[in-house]
């Protein structure tokens, strides 16, 4: 097997199963096979899915900087899968909220979406992730051409909205949202620095040699 095949037939399934682990633990904890969901299981599930959504968007955004620093170009082969897991956990978070927390009451869901900005912010992030997931197929990507990258830059907006949603939701202690915000700042900062450096280089190369 060559490297590409190894990635495709071994490493991708392994990473896929690892990514599913947090969701699997929710199920086994719920039925008491592993740990426990504690006294307030709905809140616990909501928190876990929400947190994993944020973690996966951070991991997805870390792929490019990590690839640049290490030179491990194979990392980009996992980016789509990680992005789709971000969508998966965000969707599970939303579904838990709709079904278990709001008890499928449409009036309450609409009230929350219209009256409570932090809910609307989270929902907007999910809509963005939905658009990205829907256009993640290779065929769609090809057909979209340049527009694909433009659309998929919206992952930055989704990440900012996701952290903002969390920040606004906590009662007092913003330590955890702050950690996510710090990671996001580093990931964005690296991109900005590289972007500036590249522009400078291009600028220098464009000038005639003296």
């Amino acid at each position: 097997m060559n490297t590409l095949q190894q990635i495709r037939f071994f490493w991708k399934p392994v990473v896929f199963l690892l990514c599913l682990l947090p969701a699997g633990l929710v199920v086994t904890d719920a039925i008491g096979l592993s740990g426990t969901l504690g006294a307030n299981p709905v809140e616990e599930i909501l928190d876990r899915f929400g947190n994993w959504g944020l973690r996966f968007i951070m991991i997805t955004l870390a792929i490019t900087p990590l690839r640049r620093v290490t030179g491990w170009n194979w990392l980009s082969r996992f980016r789509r899968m990680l992005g789709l897991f971000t969508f998966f956990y965000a969707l599970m978070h939303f579904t838990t909220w709709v079904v278990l927390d709001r008890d499928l009451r449409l009036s309450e869901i609409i009230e929350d979406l219209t009256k409570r900005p932090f809910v609307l912010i989270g929902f907007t992030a999910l809509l963005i992730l939905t658009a990205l997931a829907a256009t993640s197929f290779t065929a769609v990507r090809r057909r979209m051409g340049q527009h694909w990258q433009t659309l998929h830059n919206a992952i930055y907006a989704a990440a900012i909205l996701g952290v903002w949603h969390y920040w606004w939701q906590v009662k007092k202690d913003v330590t955890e949202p702050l950690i996510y915000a710090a990671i996001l700042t580093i990931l964005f900062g690296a991109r900005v620095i590289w972007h500036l450096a590249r522009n400078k280089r291009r600028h220098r190369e464009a000038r005639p040699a003296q």
Partner: protein
Amino acid sequence: MLIRKPADIRPSEITSETNYINRRDFIRAGAIAGGSLIAGAAGAAVIPDTRQAALSGIKKSEFSTDEAPNSYEDITTYNNFYEFGTGKSDPFRNAEDFKPRPWSIDVSGHAEKTGTLDFEDFMKPFDLEERIYRMRCVEAWSMVIPWVGISLADVVKHFQPTSKAKFVAFETLNDPKQMSGVRWGSLDWPYREGLTIEEATNPLSILAVGIYGKSIPNQNGAPIRLVTPWKYGFKGIKSIIRINFTSSRPRTSWNMAAPQEYGFYANVNPSVSHPRWSQARERRIGSGLFADKQETLMFNGYGEHVAHLYKGLDLRRNY
């Protein structure tokens, strides 16, 4: 696929095994207590110094609800006690080494009798009562807790407040050495709470020293805490070291932290939303994964005892 349970039996009405066993223990403890009553030990609340010791001489109360109490585990592992961390399970994990003895309570302000009392001496004049109360947290969850406590009205009367005393202010111990959460600036320490003198002397108000017939665990506010069941849980200040009779309204911790979200009164009110969530319904802890939230009642269902305290007050503005 979701399988909804039939609505005729609410999950909260089903008693768990631990509840059942706890209740057996409780009845036994009551029988022992009854024995000691006959032996003439009444009228002096004795709180043993050992951890989670069985309390004796506990009277029943007409104010208790007949709803099934939550399990001892739920009550003691899911807490808001920011002095031990902001996570729900932090107090359970971080309060283990906390020392609720020796303990003293400083009584000050507009009262005939003031001074610093040793906890045991503070407790002596009062009778222990079991009060099974609903507890509604401002975060839209609720429990039923079998407290053991003393009437706050009795406590207030004992210290003979003067006519200048319009409020009762409470303070929690502020000890960074013992309370890991205090080292963080999550709130402006010490934790402060307060009641109007009318609220403090309402028969529902108690100072709790026990749960399920045993002395109160550290994470629930050992050795003594306030319980006002018609108000949101954050009014129930824990590990009290100071009681002050004041003429003006005392500053209270959550109101200081976010005045637009938490008021001084903090009465349970389903029609006044928290800015970030609705207060119309609540999740009863222990009701299970698929149980619907239940409707929140005005004054947490204690309106007949407390509604008169707020006559003429705009509860929308005085939340």
